[in-house]
């Protein structure tokens, strides 16, 4: 019940295309869903996060779509650029007392954007 399943494992997209990464969770107590971007040799960087009270959140070229009934959420990267080439992780957490508890991470998606 603590798992977060992420797909695909790897993704190749042409420059200017849309990259889509999907995640599914089981624990309905999760109420915080962030996406992180990680470059080789670096720590994960927070991209965008969503809570279950909204179905979509957009920040620049990055959009999270959230389907509470299906227990799924996805990251869309519009107008993908070579600089977006990195590993992307979804995560889930249950907040309590105003704090984010442990993050449960997906297995990651290696995105390559071809010029």
């Amino acid at each position, binding site marked *: 019940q603590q798992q977060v399943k992420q797909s695909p494992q790897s993704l190749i997209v042409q420059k200017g295309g849309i990259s889509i990464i999907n995640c599914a969770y089981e624990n309905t107590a999760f109420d915080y869903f962030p996406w992180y971007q990680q470059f080789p040799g*670096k*720590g994960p960087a927070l991209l965008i996060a969503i809570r279950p009270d909204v179905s979509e959140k957009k920040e620049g070229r990055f959009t999270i779509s959230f389907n509470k009934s299906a227990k799924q959420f996805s990251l869309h990267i519009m107008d993908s650029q070579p600089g977006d080439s990195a590993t992307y*992780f979804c*995560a889930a957490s249950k907040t309590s007392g105003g*704090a984010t*508890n*442990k*993050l449960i*991470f997906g297995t990651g998606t290696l995105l390559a954007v071809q010029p």
Partner: protein
Amino acid sequence: DAGVTQSPTHLIKTRGQQVTLRCSPKSGHDTVSWYQQALGQGPQFIFQYYEEEERQRGNFPDRFSGHQFPNYSSELNVNALLLGDSALYLCASSLVGRTDSSQYFGAGTRLSVL
């Protein structure tokens, strides 16, 4: 505004040794979480410290211990190192009781156990 800083960047140890990793949280943050990231995997939660106490713990043995200081910085200690402890150790900081309780990560410490 300084982000999360970790030291050292890289570390090489031999089996059976002990290691201490250090983390300074993002300015204004009061909570520190530690994660282990094996090569090609997602980070795995080790434990979280708030108000100098362990608030939550993941499925890691007692060989993994930690501490948080009054200035909110934190240490991760690993005793009796095993080859399988080789990984990137990540520290993340956050702030309790705010609208944004997101966790922000440092660059990590790469530990190699030989």
